[in-house]
């Protein structure tokens, strides 16, 4: 299946781009994260404070993933 992965703020700077299309079978958001984080370029995704969203809603790493999903990874938010 195909999914779209987004990175924001410090994470986008660390990986060098802000979006990525991925092909593969991913049961959960964490499976997507682990598939990327095996590459040192994506080491930032190993931070314990990482936040994630599925289809524009905050979620846990064990959130299920479906084809066509938009998965986003980002550092703790700092608005307000």
């Amino acid at each position, binding site marked *: 299946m195909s999914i779209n992965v987004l990175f924001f703020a410090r994470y986008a700077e660390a990986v060098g781009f802000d979006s990525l299309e991925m092909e593969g079978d991913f049961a959960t958001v964490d499976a997507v994260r682990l598939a990327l984080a095996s590459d040192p370029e994506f080491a930032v995704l190993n931070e314990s*404070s990482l936040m994630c969203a599925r289809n*524009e*809603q905050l979620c846990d790493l064990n959130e299920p993933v479906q084809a066509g999903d938009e998965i986003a990874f*980002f*550092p703790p*938010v700092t*608005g*307000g």
Partner: protein
Amino acid sequence: MAIRVQADAFDPGAEVNAMHAANAGVGAVVSFVGYVRDFNDGRDVSGMFLEHYPGMTEKALAKIGVEAGQRWPLLKLEVLHRIGALEPGEPIVFVAAASAHRQAAFDACAFVMDYLKTRAPFWKKENTPDGPRWVEGRSSDHAAAERWK
């Protein structure tokens, strides 16, 4: 409920006045305005850039607003957040809650700010004499949000 995410500056006073303009049932308006400071974490700050997640930002703020409306008897709620480049002294965020009586308005305003701080996808990048730096999340913000559970 009004949710606005905008690059343009706004006038907090005008926003407060609009909270009760069309509704004489409003007995209380509580508002919060957050401003860009010129100093943070030991460094002078000459300005900042606010990045966000277009699409999710509006949804996240609306979700927080809906939850506030379920918890307190609100007559009106407004959340306004700036994005893009900002200078010290400029307002970044405005939250106002209108209700018949004060306690609901006080609580709803504090709740929306606490949830916004930990759940709305905004990121601040400050300009300092050492160059730009991303603002780090604060654990005190998470402690503040926890009190509403």
